[in-house]
């Protein structure tokens, strides 16, 4: 059983502070457990020998106070744990996002970016349970039994011996939990998740299933799978729950043995009544924290799994190396791909295989080729989201892989295939290209990008809220906003990735006009697989089998 993830402790100072606080609270709790037992025994013993209510009232008040103290401590554990959890999670979350943005801004696919976000967000519940419930329980499971045993040894060593008799059951419990619970729980959890994703898959595919008249039979399939899962799960649970049963047995057996042996010794007069009662009240407290720890174990396992995944993501190696050199401006120097090869780690084969490509200042180059030929990879390389596996990209003799990515990107404007529209106004979105842009220059950029007309037609114009929860934009509208970003940025090198893909003729024509305006005085890389745009290029390069070939357009068609 992983009691505490070392990386979690090392990484986060609040965790250490929490551990210290939990230890203090745990020691106080243990003290109160002892006080409570002594008080109950004393009150009962006094009454036994004829004391009136008045005689024990002070003790009764103290008893209520001791419980009140335990109540406050219980509350304190929860508050301290949750506070620490939120701080730790916040640190991990920001570290993760910051690292992703710095070193791997381009998720290799959409699913991955979704998974990262889910990990960063959903970590909350898991880690809260870990810090607020599990960790205090770990402390209590160590401190309280020790305190209980300490006191019992002092007042009645024989009973302490009896309690220790049940102790061998604990390793059995540990063995069971290690052997079955942890591993099997994990398996079961995975199976459950698989079942859940299967259900999601079926519901997502409902239109398709119905379209092929296969919708109705799925209900029976779901029923069957659910029933099969239940049967196998119950099989493992029968064994897994044994660990809990063993612990429970240790606890009840402990109490029963203490009661019986103490009773016999009381009867022959070798033990005092108050001592015997104190020991009896304490007996269940020996195992209670351990039993509660076992109950918290699952919640904590989830929390640790999330933390684990966050560490993995944070520690992932960066796909690009940093660099210190400053590359010259593409206004002054050509950009050269020299025998560049590249392969994605997740896919077999080379995407680019010894690509040679030159881009000269004030020139527009169209990069064409069949889908999957690596056109978008060329853009990613140019943007330094990835570095070549072999070969190099040189700007004025400086290898881009050794240059500072932030300074290099200041020279670039990029219009991706599917631009992200961020939550905010349209003006905010255009200003991404230049955060300092005035209202006037935002509008000028929109005019050049062919966006002004549709923006002006909106009720709130440039102040219209877009992005998640705002007004939805069509593909053509988003593309024009992204073009406006490129205009307002006014960078010497512009990368346009399929700016007219999926657009109908009218929208495509508006975008093509904007591209024509954008290219003057700039170096432009225009990625396309359709003919309309290519006429705007000075030169056409056909990308095929990972290599660039100079072609005239007629030949390409």
């Amino acid at each position, binding site marked *: 059983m992983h009691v505490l993830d070392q990386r979690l402790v090392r990484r986060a100072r609040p965790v250490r502070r929490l551990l210290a606080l939990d230890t203090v609270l745990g020691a106080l709790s243990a003290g109160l457990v002892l006080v409570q037992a002594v008080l109950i025994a004393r009150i009962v013993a006094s009454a036994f020998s004829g004391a009136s209510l008045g005689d024990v009232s002070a003790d009764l008040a103290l008893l209520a106070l001791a*419980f009140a103290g335990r109540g406050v401590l219980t509350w304190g554990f929860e508050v301290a744990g949750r506070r620490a959890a939120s701080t730790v999670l916040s640190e991990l979350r920001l570290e993760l996002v910051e690292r992703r943005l710095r070193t791997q801004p381009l998720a290799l696919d959409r699913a991955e970016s979704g998974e990262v976000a889910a990990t960063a967000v959903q970590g909350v519940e898991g880690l809260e349970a870990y810090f607020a419930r599990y960790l205090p329980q770990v402390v209590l499971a160590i401190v309280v039994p020790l305190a209980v045993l300490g006191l019992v040894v002092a007042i009645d060593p024989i009973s302490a011996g009896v309690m220790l008799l049940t102790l061998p059951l604990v390793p059995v419990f540990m063995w069971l939990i290690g052997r079955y619970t942890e591993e099997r729980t994990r398996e079961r959890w995975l199976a459950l998740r698989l079942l859940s994703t299967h259900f999601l898959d079926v519901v997502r595919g409902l239109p398709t299933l119905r379209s092929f008249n296969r919708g109705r039979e799925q209900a029976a399939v779901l029923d069957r799978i*659910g029933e099969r899962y239940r049967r196998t799960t119950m099989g493992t649970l029968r064994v897994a729950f044994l660990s809990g049963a063993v612990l429970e047995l240790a606890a009840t057996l402990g109490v029963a043995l203490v009661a019986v042996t103490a009773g016999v010794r009381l009867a022959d007069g070798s033990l005092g009544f108050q001592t015997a009662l104190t020991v009896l009240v304490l007996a269940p407290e020996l195992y209670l924290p351990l039993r509660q720890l076992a109950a918290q174990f699952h919640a904590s396992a989830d929390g640790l799994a999330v933390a684990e995944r966050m560490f993995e993501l944070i520690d992932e190696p960066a796909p690009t190396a940093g660099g210190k050199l400053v590359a010259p401006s593409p206004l002054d120097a050509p950009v050269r791909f020299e025998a560049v090869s590249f392969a994605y780690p997740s896919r077999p084969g080379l995407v680019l295989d010894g690509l040679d490509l030159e881009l000269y200042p004030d020139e527009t180059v169209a990069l064409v080729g069949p889908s999957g030929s690596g056109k978008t990879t060329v853009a990613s390389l140019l943007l330094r989201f990835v570095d070549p596996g072999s070969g190099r990209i040189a700007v004025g003799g400086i290898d881009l892989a050794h240059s500072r990515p932030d300074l290099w990107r200041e020279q670039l404007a990029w219009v991706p295939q599917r631009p992200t529209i961020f939550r905010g106004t349209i003006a905010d979105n255009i200003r991404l290209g230049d955060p300092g842009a005035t209202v006037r220059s935002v509008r000028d950029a929109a005019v050049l990008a062919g966006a002004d007309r549709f923006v002006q037609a909106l009720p709130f114009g440039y102040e219209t809220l877009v992005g998640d929860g705002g007004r939805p934009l069509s593909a053509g509208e988003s593309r024009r906003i992204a073009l406006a970003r490129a205009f307002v940025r006014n960078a010497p090198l512009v990368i346009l990735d399929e700016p007219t893909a999926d657009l109908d003729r009218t929208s495509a024509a508006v975008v093509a006009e904007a591209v024509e305006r954008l290219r003057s005085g700039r170096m432009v890389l225009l990625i396309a697989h359709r003919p309309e745009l290519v006429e705007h290029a000075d030169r056409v390069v056909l990308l095929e089998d990972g290599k660039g070939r100079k072609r005239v357009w007629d030949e390409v068609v």
Partner: protein
Amino acid sequence: MTATIRRLMLITDVRWTRLALAALLGALTILFGVGLMGTAGYLISRAAEHPAVLSLTAAIVGVRFFGLARPLARYFERLASHDVALRSLGRARAQVYEAVEPLAPAQLEDTRRGDLLSRFVGDVDSLQNLYLRSLEPPLVALIAGVASVALAALFLPAAGLVLALGLLVGGIAVPVAASTVSRRSSERHARARGALSAELVETLSGGAELAAFGLERDRIRSLRRADSRLVRISRRAALADGLGDGLRVLVTGATVAGVLAVSVQAHAEGRLDRVLIALLALLSLAAFEAVQPLTEALRELRATVAAGERVLDLTDRAPRIVDPALPIPAPVAPFAIALEDVRARYAPGERPALDGFSLRLEPGKRVVLLGPSGAGKTTVARLLQRFIDPERGRVILAGKDLRRYRQEDVRSLIAVAGQDAHLFSASIRDNLALGNPGATDGDLARALRSARILDWVLSLPDGPDTLVGEEGRELSGGQRQRIVLARALLTGAPVLVLDEPTANLDPATAKALVQDVFAAGRGRTVLLITHRPEGVDLADEVVILREPRVT
């Protein structure tokens, strides 16, 4: 809330006997604990009077019995309650599925936005908690509580009264108060978390653009602000959330002190044998185990009911598309299909997706439907498969209104390879088999060849047994589309509707694909829906669709 709970119990479909068994075992577990502590207290007290050891035998046997019975009861209770939970989960999935199946796709359109569908699936999953974490604990507490109080009252009515009061406060007042206090703060917490997660998702999915524009630092700063707001709120929420457990411990202490007080008083007045004082005190202490999970159970119940309401909201929708009471038999090919002056709308109040549109597909003809995006091309495919009914006008199949046939007959006559078609997380072969479960390898190869993807499939190490991943993620957009196309070709339906099969292809491949598809569909009616010009020259007829006028 109770009405919702009752309906959720119907969906999860668990027999009362099973739930009662689990609750009874749970109550027994607690009562055996109560018995153990009570008997042990009595044993010690009685022994203190130095009687003959033999007279203690009954108490000793009792202690041993309870000590062994409790772990057994706990073990079987856990098995019984988990069995109930698993059963309810399986039934809930199947029943919810049956309810939403006839709604797809038109009436589930709104769940595709964002990722509401995966939330829906999560909501269905959480219904398993209804018994395990929400309904069983109060039931157990009720049985065990009443029995403990009765037991205490048997020895001393006043002690029973104090214990009853304590259990009521600890089991009802404390959970209700705690959940009322924490409700507002946890709502604010949930909102702040939602806001942060939206920003996180946006940052990660738009990360490349932020980096390209050098805005990483600004973005991190803004995230940091949203994050520290969340931390502040969650710290405040923690203050409220810990209250329930703390208060319960306090009430336990007060009750034990109260029971001790009345017992001491009763003994002083000669109404209670002194050997029963310890019994009553320890019994009361043990009885509080019954109310311990109730604060959490109430919180859990609120969450499950909220999730359940969202599920019911969907399953309550009455299917708009239903089979006629007296369907006419399916026609035998060749037959013509026509849309006559059709207007269609996805939701009342929305603007029509298609208006005043007519189209006639003669048997064996190859027709291209050309139009810009948003002009309602996909709606035509849905009308033909009767996934949506026209609001005005008619769809005619073999001279009769489409609504007079059984839906399954219509769909076996008209196969659609849609743009939004789903690929299941299974092998290429399994996905193709959906079109025709009895297809031979030869049929598969022919369909794949016509879809221009056979060579690629054969080049894969596992060939057609290659897994396509969730939603076909392991394939590129173009590959996905061609598998979908091959699946529709496999059906052997006399009418094929192909929705944008060339969208992700370069012009040369697109043209070849259209050629192959028309060839493979020889003898069948083919409707090719597209916004691109390739293949137009190969068609028998071209229909142009314009955007419906905004009214």
